[in-house]
């Protein structure tokens, strides 16, 4: 009467209509989730180096976006001092410059770097760690 179910591609059959809208826009919601697709990167000897560069830059860009979202969240929650805001802002600004240089150098556009890794809420916030400087959110 009862049986264990382990669907192989969980969820694929639940999609009724999908026209390419980006589920990853959810990453703007700090209280939601991080979801990454199952990436399969096929590369061959001729393109390996280029593909790996793209992967590395995509990862850097993803981390940049995560940091930016975290920073914004903290600013909104009033958990950064003015001085910290300025420092974090400058750092992110320089990071953006650096990424622009690297993209130009390798001839990549912003779209080439989208890995669709989402937002990770600060683990400490979720688990409700002890109040410490800039730790607690809710």
């Amino acid at each position: 009467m009862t049986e264990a179910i382990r669907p192989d591609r969980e969820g694929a059959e639940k999609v009724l209509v999908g026209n390419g809208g980006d589920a990853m826009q959810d990453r703007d919601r700090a209280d939601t989730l991080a979801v990454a697709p199952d990436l399969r990167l096929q590369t061959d000897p001729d393109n390996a180096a280029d593909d790996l560069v793209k992967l590395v830059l995509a990862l850097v860009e993803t981390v940049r976006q995560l940091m930016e979202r975290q920073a914004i969240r903290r600013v909104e929650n009033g958990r950064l001092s003015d001085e910290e805001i300025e420092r974090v802002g400058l750092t992110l600004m320089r990071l953006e410059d650096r990424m622009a240089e690297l993209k130009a150098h390798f001839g990549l556009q912003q779209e080439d770097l989208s890995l669709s890794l989402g937002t990770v809420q600060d683990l400490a916030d979720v688990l409700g760690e002890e109040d410490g400087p800039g730790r607690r959110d809710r």
Partner: protein
Amino acid sequence: MPLETGGGQDLALSDLLDRALDKGVVLWGEATVSLAGVDLVYVGLKVLIGSVDAVQRMRGAAPGGLPAAEADETA
């Protein structure tokens, strides 16, 4: 570099988590890097991080209780 992604699964998972979790957060990532058809590197991460209460209860760390009914009325 062709990137095949399980986009449909993301959509369904996002919608599922919105509903089945109470402010939960999930870290979920999988990547397989192949070189010339040979799978070389696999990175897998499937961890669910729920709300503090839910996680603590599920780990037996705290007594549970059904969540409060919506504040209402005449019932």
